[in-house]
């Protein structure tokens, strides 16, 4: 297809029904503070990885909740688990553990 210099564009809509929220459900169960995120972006502002690469914990949070898991899976390993994000979070979300739980959830589902 690339030979022709065009491709079929993917639909940008979040297809709520066909998306699976099993990763989100696993995290809700094992790290309930995941529900408290208000998407303020404090975590992403302080994140070293986020300043250097296309990684935003705030974004991953919302993508997981919507079941947009592909981008989450591609990005999870960028996190260095330094935990600086949890020092900033105004809602007391255990942000670092969300990454850990998300990794576990993917392992289980794979």
């Amino acid at each position: 297809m690339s030979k022709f210099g065009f491709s079929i564009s993917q639909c940008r809509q979040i297809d709520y029904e066909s998306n699976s929220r099993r990763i989100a459900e696993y995290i809700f169960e094992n790290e309930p503070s995941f529900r408290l995120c208000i998407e303020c972006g404090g975590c992403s502002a302080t994140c070293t990885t986020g300043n250097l690469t296309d990684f935003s914990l705030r974004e991953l949070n919302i993508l997981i909740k919507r079941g947009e898991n592909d981008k989450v899976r591609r990005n999870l390993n960028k996190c260095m688990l330094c935990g600086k994000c949890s020092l900033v979070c105004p809602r007391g979300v255990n942000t670092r553990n969300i990454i850990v739980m998300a990794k576990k959830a993917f392992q289980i589902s794979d």
Partner: protein
Amino acid sequence: MRKHVVVIGGGVAGLEAAGQLTKVGVDVSLIEKESKTGGNLNKWFKLFPDRRSSSEVKNYLDGMTVNNGINLHTNATIEKFSRSKSSFSITTNAGKELKADAVIVATGFDLFKSERKEEYGYGIYDNVISSADLEEMFRKGIIAKTNGAEPEKIGIIHCVGSRDEKVGNFYCSKLCCVTAVKQAIEIREMLPESKVFCFYMDMRMGGALYEEMYREAQQKWGVNFIRGKVSEASETIENQLMIKVEDTLAGRPLKMKLDMLVLMAGMEMSKGGKKIASISGLHTGENRFFAATDNHFGNNKSNVEGVFYAGTCTAPMNITETISHARAAVLEVMDYLTDSKI
């Protein structure tokens, strides 16, 4: 026989309550911890939403109290508080014992101490100031950096000490968003060459004429609004402030150099209020403010019969709400004094 009510706190709520009680023929003793009345109102220069001078409100309140021969105790704190049958005994730090048939607690709020959010650098870096500090600059008519120069780029951080688990305050202080908008407009008026950026988590413009001010700030004054919680402020080697935030709507981390940073300090239960709670047995809530007995129809009532609340000692409120709340407290007091056999 004339009744006697002690009002604790000479801010907006206490003055309004004292004034209204006087009008209906009740004797009032007003206790104020500072040397003059007005409370937090004295820290503000102009008020939202109509930018009227705070002194106008102060004059209205003093007019029916301080300048109307009210029994005022200044520099007075309360050391003892007791109730026997239907009479209260209140002893001040001067050793004066006051007897009362009912009490209105109007101990108000303290502004959140911005140095507690160490990551924003208040008291550490130059040119990080609080909303109250900025009001002081407005009063003096000059906005200047510590080196005397005019700031060109000014950042305003919302929710400092509010909605923040890290400082133990889950609640929204409700007035800081509109204060940010008001102050942003005032900065732009005084410094037409300046640029102002508000960093917010949510814009809570839920009051009369608030949204209109927000719109005016954008349309007429070009104030910029960036959605994201600032994670930290630092200083560059040129001694300039630098903040880090995620521009959540752009989905990208953002850094910005600023000449001045204004922190929108939230509201907390006052120190004086906490002391009264500890000696009187009045209940406080999870947010540390006094807990009224019912959120809908007992919003002025305390757990002690004959003690009523007025104003921001129960929750963050603006001045309009505070005055209404104080008037409602007076109505409760009148009901109580009429119904009871005292």
